[in-house]
C-alpha cells in the first residue's frame, strides 16, 4: 500500500484513447446482468427458478391428473415458477439499488438515470428469454421421457412458445415497473401481488366493474397466453392489462427515478 505506487500523473493511462467514450448500451445491459447475478441473493433466485422449472416439468409430464399429457400442458406448467419468481427479480433489480444505496455509485458512473433503467429493462428481457428457453427445454425433455406425442391437439406451435415468452417477459417487466414506482422491495412485492388481487375482488362484487375487469384482470387476460392462440379480442384485453399494470407504475417510476435526489 505505498502511496507512490504510481508515479505517472493522474489520468495518464489511455489519455488519447477511449476514456471519453460513453459506455454503450450493450455494455450497460451486460453490467446490469452482472449486477443481477453477482450478489448472494441474486445468484440463488435464478438457480431456484431453473430447479423448480425442471421439477414442475417432470411432475406435469408424469402425473397430469385427467388431462391429456401433452407438450403444451408441460410447457404451461413449466412456465409457472418463472411466472412467480421473475417479477420478484424485476422488483429487486430496481429496489436493491435503492435499499443498498448503490445508486450513489451507479448514477455517478452513468448520470443519465433513464439509460440505467433502459439497461435494466434490456437485462430483464434477456433473463426472461433465458427462462423461456429453460422452460421449453425442460418441458420438451420431460414430455418426451414420459412418452407424450409432440403432435395433435396438445402440440406446441411457435405461436404458443412466443406467447409464453411474452407472458414471462411481461411478468418480469411488470415487477420492474412496480419496483420503480415504489423503490422499496417488500412493499413493491406486496403491491405487485396484492393490487391485482384487490382489483379482482372488487370487480367480482361490484357489477359495473365487471366489464372493465374483463379487460384488466391479469389472471383472465394473461393466463391464456401459455395455453391457446389468443383471439383478436383477447389480444386487446392483454394490451389493456399491460397498459394498466405495466404502463401506470412505469410512468410513476420514471418520474420518481428521473427527478429524485439520492440519499
Amino acid at each position: 500500500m505505498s502511496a507512490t505506487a504510481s508515479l505517472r500523473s493522474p489520468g495518464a493511462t489511455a489519455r488519447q484513447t477511449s476514456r471519453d467514450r460513453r459506455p454503450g448500451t450493450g455494455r450497460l445491459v451486460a453490467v446490469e446482468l452482472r449486477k443481477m447475478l453477482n450478489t448472494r441473493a441474486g445468484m440463488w433466485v435464478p438457480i431456484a427458478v431453473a430447479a423448480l422449472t425442471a421439477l414442475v416439468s417432470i411432475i406435469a409430464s408424469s402425473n397430469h391428473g385427467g388431462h391429456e399429457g401433452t407438450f403444451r400442458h408441460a410447457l404451461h406448467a413449466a412456465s409457472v415458477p418463472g411466472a412467480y419468481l421473475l417479477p420478484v427479480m424485476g422488483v429487486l433489480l430496481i429496489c436493491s439499488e435503492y435499499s443498498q444505496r448503490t445508486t450513489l455509485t451507479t448514477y455517478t458512473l452513468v448520470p443519465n438515470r433513464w439509460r440505467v433503467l433502459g439497461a435494466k429493462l434490456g437485462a430483464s428481457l434477456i433473463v426472461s428469454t433465458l427462462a423461456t428457453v429453460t422452460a421449453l427445454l425442460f418441458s420438451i425433455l420431460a414430455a418426451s421421457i414420459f412418452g407424450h406425442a409432440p403432435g395433435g391437439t396438445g402440440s406446441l406451435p411457435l405461436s404458443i412458445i412466443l406467447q409464453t415468452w411474452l407472458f414471462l417477459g411481461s411478468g418480469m417487466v411488470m415487477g420492474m415497473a412496480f419496483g420503480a414506482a415504489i423503490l422499496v422491495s417488500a412493499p413493491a412485492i406486496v403491491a405487485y401481488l396484492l393490487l391485482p388481487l384487490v382489483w379482482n375482488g372488487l370487480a367480482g362484487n361490484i357489477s359495473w366493474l365487471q366489464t372493465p375487469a374483463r379487460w384488466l384482470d391479469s389472471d383472465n387476460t394473461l393466463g391464456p397466453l401459455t395455453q391457446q392462440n389468443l383471439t383478436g379480442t383477447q389480444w386487446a384485453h392483454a394490451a389493456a392489462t399491460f397498459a394498466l399494470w405495466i404502463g401506470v407504475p412505469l410512468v410513476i417510476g420514471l418520474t420518481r427515478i428521473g427527478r429524485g435526489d439520492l440519499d
Partner: protein
Amino acid sequence: MLSTMIEANSLTKRYGGRTAVRDVSFRCEPGTVTGFLGPNGAGKSTTLKMLCGMAQPTGGGATVMGMPFAELPNPGRRVGVLIDASAQHSGRRGAEVLATSAQLMGVDHKRVGEMLELVGLDRAAGRKRVGKYSLGMRQRLGIAHALLGDPEVLILDEPANGLDPEGMRWMRALLRDFADRGGTVLLSSHLLGEVQATADRLVVIARGEIVAQGTPGELTGGVPRTVVRAADGELADRALRRALEEEEIVVSESPDGGLLTEADPGIVGRAAMRGGVALAELRPASDGASLEQLFFELTTDKTEYHAELPELQEAAR
C-alpha cells in the same frame, strides 16, 4: 489543461421552505487539495452531491472539468467520487464491486487487483462480501473505487471516517501525492485535523453558507496570535483576563485552556506584570492552533444559532 477543475457557482439547495445550502461558490485548481470543512449537518454532503449530479440545485450550478457532471461522457474515467463508503451492496464481494465498475467504465480488469493492493486490501479481503467489511475497509474499498478509472479529479466525502491513525496518515500521503502529480482533490471533513496537514486551500462551511475560504495562511491572516496561561489555576486566569482587558487587549478562550489573543507576546507579558499575575505559559500560537481557534469561532456561533432552529439542522442533513 483546464485551470479550474471543479467550480461551484452560487449553489443553493432548499427543501420546502428550508435552506440547506445557500449561495456556495468555490473553485478547485489542478495540483491542489481543497479541504471542505464544516460541522456535521453544515451542508457538505448536499453540496458534494450537487457537484456530482446526485441532487438538483434549487439555484446556481456547478461544473467539473468545465462541464456539468452529468454531461461527462464517461465520468468515472475523469472524476473519482466517494460520497458514502457504506453505500455498497452487502452481498457483493469487494473485488467484484471493482470489477463490475471496471467493466462499465471500460477499464482493464488488471486495475482491480492493482487498486486493491494500493489501498491495502489483500486477496482474502477482496474475496469477502462487503457486508463483512469494517468501516475502515469500506472506506479503503471506496477510495480504490474512486481511483479505479484513473481520474484527474477526486471528490471524497469524509473519506477519513472509520480509518485508524495509520490509515489516516496513509490516505493523506496518497491524496498529497495525487495532487502533486497534477490531480485535483476536494475532500470534506468535520475535523480540521484531518485535512489541515494536506490541504492547500480550505473552504469552511457552516449552516449551509461559506464562512471562510483561502489558504491556511490567508485564513489566519498572518495575525500574530499569542497563547497565555496564568500559573495558579482558574481564579488566576480570570485575573489575567481582567489585566489584559484593562490594556484593551482582546482575548478569547483557547479550546485547550488558557487564553488566546491577537496581541504580541511582549505586550501580553507586560500587561500581566502590571496586573500582578504570574504566568505559566506565554508563547506565540502555532499556525495550527490559530487555525483551530478560527475554525472553532467560524463554526460555533453558527452551530449555536443552529441549535435554536432544529428544523434547519435537519434540512441541512
